[in-house]
């Protein structure tokens, strides 16, 4: 199998350049609140992308992303609280290691369980970590979480810059853009093709001779690491870590981003995240329980538009 | 009474039937022969709404029933005895029968009559009436599958390979049952691999090949001229 190319490549790169350009320009034109908001959308977008690897490409619905995200967050917190001066790169490493360990754990179960059993188990894992973090107050700060100082954007020998909101934003744009490029490369590689083949017809993929277990393990690890990275970014942006983010409902929201944006498209989930967060921002001023209509729209989309916005657009434009 | 007109049917993405047309008149016993995999079972399933008919029509008693859900068809008088019998293994013999017997519009007297009739035709079922369906032997399960269909008091029974895997003694029992049903005016569309049996009980026979009907003749003609059978079935 060769890497996939299609007539959308050129427009895609043009679009990508435009979007990145806009994002880089954002802090220079937007008021502070919206600038922060843009940064947050990017972080959740990264989380949604990581989730798409599992849901969209491999066909495994995981409620465990809150665990990966949470451990990335707490891992970063650990680094930033225990090592002086707070080191950005160490925070990233700690966060990725934390998320990676959880991902390895989940990966083990991914290979032995299918469908709903897998989903329920990932949900249970999220809850296990939630309970541990919530009750182990001495280490994790329990209900109140942990607060810490932001590190500097420091590259030894090159620069040492404080993270102003603008610098942070650019850093996040860089990280998320790079992650996107990396994930895109991976999903379009032969490896990515096999993942999709697993989603479409697992027994047949196995019959052809692929070690489905190994692919699933790698998919979970990949997904977990990028989710953890999102957690690290969130910790750095907000300077706190809280158990709320480990609650499985966060995973649920991520899944909503995925479905609304379009699973299996990588870009779709980011769009879904942006759409959802903007909707929340807009609607919550008028109607506190905005999640009721949003939830209903979600259900309708699952039934009638399972491809999500992007999938729908893609089909329309391909015709 | 039952007519298939140019039915194209799919099983998932496989195009199995490429335009099947046949008909069964009231009270007729019609045979459907063909090698393995030509689409005989799929033809029955397309009547039952279980194999998506993409093109073509199925009519029953003048009414278009193409693609209707199975439970409507049972109400209209079409009963199905599938290839693998599909006995409800965890239900007792009596409960299996009741899935067809417990219908609206059937009073207690009629129910008792139906049950007695079926027990008379299949004494072994009366014996085992409180046993779980899964504990019956292959032949007994076939009896049960047919008896269960009879509970619907159907106008036509779609019989899919009833003698598959049965001992000769049971095969002749099946033959007697087909005869009995025919006597009562129940039409039968019989899919079979057993050619002699089919030719013996049927009035007319269709022969299928690769998803279409290739030959159609009265059974008497085919009995007199076995070369045709050899040609299509290599038997």
């Amino acid at each position, binding site marked *: 199998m060769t890497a996939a190319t299609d007539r959308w490549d050129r427009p895609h790169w043009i679009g990508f350049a435009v979007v990145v350009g806009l994002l880089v320009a954002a802090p220079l034109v937007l008021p502070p609140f919206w600038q922060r908001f843009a940064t947050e959308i990017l972080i959740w977008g990264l989380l949604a992308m990581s989730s798409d690897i599992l*849901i969209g490409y491999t*066909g495994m*619905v995981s409620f465990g992303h809150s665990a990966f995200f949470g451990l990335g967050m707490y891992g970063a917190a650990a680094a930033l609280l225990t090592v002086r001066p707070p080191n950005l790169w160490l925070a990233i490493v700690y966060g990725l290691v934390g998320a990676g360990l959880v991902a390895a754990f989940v990966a083990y*179960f991914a290979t*032995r*369980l299918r*469908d*709903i*059993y897998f*989903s*329920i*188990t990932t*949900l*249970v894992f999220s*809850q*296990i970590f939630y*309970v*541990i973090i*919530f*009750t182990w107050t001495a280490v994790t700060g329990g209900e109140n979480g942990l607060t810490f100082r932001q590190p500097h954007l420091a590259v030894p020998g090159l620069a040492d810059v404080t993270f102003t909101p603008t610098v942070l934003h650019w850093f996040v744009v860089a990280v998320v853009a790079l992650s996107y490029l990396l994930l895109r490369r991976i999903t379009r590689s032969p490896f990515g093709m096999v993942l999709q083949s697993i989603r479409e017809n697992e027994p047949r993929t196995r019959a052809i001779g692929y070690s489905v277990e190994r692919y699933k393990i790698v998919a979970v690890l990949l997904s977990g690491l990028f989710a953890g990275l999102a957690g690290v970014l969130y910790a750095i942006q907000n300077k706190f870590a809280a158990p709320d983010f480990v609650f*499985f*409902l966060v995973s*649920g929201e991520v*899944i*909503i981003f995925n*479905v609304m944006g379009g699973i299996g498209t990588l870009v779709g989930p980011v769009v879904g995240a942006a759409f959802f967060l903007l909707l929340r921002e807009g609607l919550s001023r008028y109607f*506190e*329980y905005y*999640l*009721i209509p949003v*939830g*209903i729209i*979600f*259900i309708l989309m*699952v*039934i009638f538009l*399972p491809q999500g916005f992007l999938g729908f657009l893609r089909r329309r434009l391909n015709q | 009474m039952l007519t298939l007109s140019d039915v194209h049917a799919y099983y998932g993405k496989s195009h199995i039937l490429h335009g099947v047309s046949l008909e069964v008149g009231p009270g007729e016993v019609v045979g459907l022969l063909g090698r393995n995999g030509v689409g005989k079972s799929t033809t029955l399933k397309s009547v*039952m709404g*279980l194999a998506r008919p993409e093109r073509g029509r199925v009519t029953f008693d003048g009414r278009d029933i193409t693609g209707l*859900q*199975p*439970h409507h*068809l*049972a*109400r209209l008088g079409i*009963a*199905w005895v*599938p290839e693998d019998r*599909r006995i*409800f*293994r*965890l*239900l007792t013999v009596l*409960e299996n029968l*009741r*899935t*067809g017997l*417990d*219908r609206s519009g059937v009073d207690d007297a009629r129910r008792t009559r139906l049950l007695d009739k079926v027990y008379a035709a299949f004494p072994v079922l009366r014996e085992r009436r409180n046993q779980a369906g899964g504990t019956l032997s292959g032949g007994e399960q076939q009896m049960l599958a047919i008896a269960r269909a009879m509970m*619907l008091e159907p106008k036509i029974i779609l019989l899919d390979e009833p003698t598959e895997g049965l001992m000769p003694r049971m095969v002749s029992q099946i033959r007697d049952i087909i005869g009995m049903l025919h006597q009562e005016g129940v039409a039968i569309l019989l899919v079979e691999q057993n050619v002699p049996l089919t030719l013996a009980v049927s009035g007319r026979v269709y022969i299928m090949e690769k998803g279409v009907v290739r030959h159609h003749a009265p059974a008497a003609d085919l009995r007199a001229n076995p070369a045709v059978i050899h040609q299509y079935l290599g038997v």
Partner: protein
Amino acid sequence: MGFEPILVQTVNGLVNGMILALVASGLTLIFGIMDVVNFAHGDLVMLGGFVGASTMAVTGNFWVALLVAALVIAVFGAALQVSTLRPLLGRDPLTTILATFGVSLVLQKYALWQWGPSARNLQEPITGRFDLFYLQYPWYRVATAVLAGAIIGALWLFLKRGTFGIWIRATTQDRIMASAMGIPVPWVHTTVFAIGAAMAAASGVLFGPLGGVTQTMGSDFTLRAFIVVVVGGMGNLGGSILAAIFISLLEAYASLFVSPAQAVIVSFVALILTLLFRPTGLFVPTPK
């Protein structure tokens, strides 16, 4: 530690187990017959509790509230199944998980909107305690277990006898053949979902005097019910009941040593061990 706390926790475990069994039976029944994992099942428990609380505020009668809640949620469940789940029949299981998750979200926020964030308490219909070793044990708790058991028993009888019970069991075993026998399968599905919803609602009302009714109790019940259903064997009614009691007893004993919030980890561990070693269910006679 003395002998008595263990016995008290055994009784507590049994009581909680019976309520959980009531919730789980509905869930496993629904899964067995239509392969649907109802993520919103716990939220039906929650809604039932709230409807019961509101009814009781109006009528003052617990038993009327129980009945009304069960009926209202049964009708709601039927409507839900017809509108949301029927179109999804035959699609891959991923979509029903997502759809019912969406329903769960909507129900939780709806409850928050209609009943507010604070917990509702229901008055016990049976007050008074009796001497259980060193403490005074409430009669109501025992009554709850008995009532839950009675409802489950009634369900069992319903399934074993009568035409509808045969229809349900036939549809569970072989949906297509059941349909071919004239059984109105879509209608059977809707009715079973309604029954499951009614049982969930009843659990919510029964649980009301014990723990109060809150929005978040839905997720809690859903999670526990899932664990019970998996440990008991999906689609296996008897297994769910045993598993519910087993898990509740484990949690009850665990809370002698750790806080209740941490005691739930015991059930998580039970789930994981079951999935690893006996994935078809601990209480299933032979692994298939």
